[in-house]
């Protein structure tokens, strides 16, 4: 196919109008561990599988869900180290906004700035796109919000979304179970059930991670024991 001749350089369009490197980046995301997010009427929940390469890894030291500001959290699918760079940059941008305006950055603004960074890496020399898609969950004056940001730099607001390995099954499951006025706790249960759908092995508080933000506007990552409690409620 003519496209492959144009896959060497990120900054060259292929004849079909694609930037092949971005397509490859999306493939990297698609083979990453499943993550998902659900926007409830009074909050947002994001969750991800936390499959570690070996049982010898100290799972308490690994945290995939990160806080960007006290009221915004993020989870990724794809290459972990790439997500760390984005988290760093986003945190800095959020703090710069606060320093200038003495006001917490609105979720949309932070998402836009993060997406701008990701887009810059698709139009610069000597760099490659980020191999992650991010799900950003936040609660500000406009209420609860959930955004997905792709390696191309495009971002979308979602009521519920999934990314990674099991994306089509997960999204189908979410489409069936999502309702507009769902409450935060119900959303957590739905998130767990969705993860369970494609989960290989026994799901437990140690191999999934859940982060949530409610009307108190504080983003928290649940501890393994809190996750266990929700898991038992689902059983």
């Amino acid at each position: 196919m003519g496209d492959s001749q144009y896959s060497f350089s990120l900054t060259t369009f292929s004849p079909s109008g694609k930037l092949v490197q971005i397509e490859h980046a999306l493939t990297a995301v698609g083979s990453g561990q499943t993550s998902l997010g659900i926007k409830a009427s009074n909050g947002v929940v994001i969750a991800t599988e936390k499959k570690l390469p070996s049982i010898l890894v100290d799972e308490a030291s690994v945290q995939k869900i990160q806080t960007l500001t006290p009221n915004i959290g993020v989870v990724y699918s794809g290459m972990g180290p790439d997500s760390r760079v984005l988290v760093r940059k986003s945190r800095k941008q959020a703090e710069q906004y606060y320093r200038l305006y003495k006001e917490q950055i609105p979720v949309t603004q932070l998402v836009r700035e993060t997406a701008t960074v990701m887009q810059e890496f698709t139009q610069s020399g000597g760099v490659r796109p980020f191999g992650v898609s991010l799900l950003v969950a936040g609660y500000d004056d406009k209420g609860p919000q959930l955004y997905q940001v792709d390696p191309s730099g495009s971002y979308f607001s979602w009521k519920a979304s999934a990314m990674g390995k099991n994306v089509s099954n997960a999204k189908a499951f979410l489409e069936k179970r999502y309702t507009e006025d769902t409450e935060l706790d119900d959303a957590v249960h739905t998130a767990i059930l969705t993860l369970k759908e494609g989960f290989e092995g026994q799901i437990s508080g140690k191999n999934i991670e859940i982060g949530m933000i409610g009307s108190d506007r504080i983003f928290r990552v649940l501890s393994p024991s809190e996750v266990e409690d929700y898991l038992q409620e689902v059983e």
Partner: protein
Amino acid sequence: MRRKALAFDHFLHLNVGKCSNFGSGVIFEYNGSALVAMVGKNCFAIASDRRLGVQLQTIATDFQKIYRIHHTLFIGLAGLATDTQTLYQRLVFRHKLYHLREERDMKPETFASLVSAVLYEKRFGPYFCQPVIAGLGDDDKPFICTMDSIGAKELAKDFVVAGTASESLYGACESMFKPDMEAEELFETISQALISSVDRDCLSGWGGHVYLVTPTEVTERILKGRMD
């Protein structure tokens, strides 16, 4: 290291005799101004004089010193006129972009933080301006503040003053101010405070310009004072 000759250096010799114990404050007295903002009950008023002078000569009697950022946010700028005009242009630029990006107007507290940051950027070559910011914040609560030329914010619950007539203004406001005044009474009070203060300052006066802002309307009035 040779210091670059600044514009007003040429006029320093004119001022040295008059203001030898003022130090670098002379530049703030080049054009002359009087600004005051007061808080009332769910409303605020911001007022200025109308004189533009070049030291002792009056050049204009209709010079605008209070600018509108959005329908419930005003900034008055005292000090060197060229700096106040440039600073206003920069701030309006920033607010317009903010409005386009965030699809909302800036809250007064946020705007005050922005002004402070913009002024501090020029810490070692400052704008010779003293801003007075007044706006209605969340729930239409009036907000006023002032800051010095390098961005040190001063919030107040009652009134803030700036300009060459500031000392007289402090006295007049302190004695005339009452908390929770309704719009009409607030207008009377701020007008009296302004007129009586500028009458004691040779560099400000030639009338007054008062904006009275409530959640529903903005009233702009010109005051007639001693035209000298």
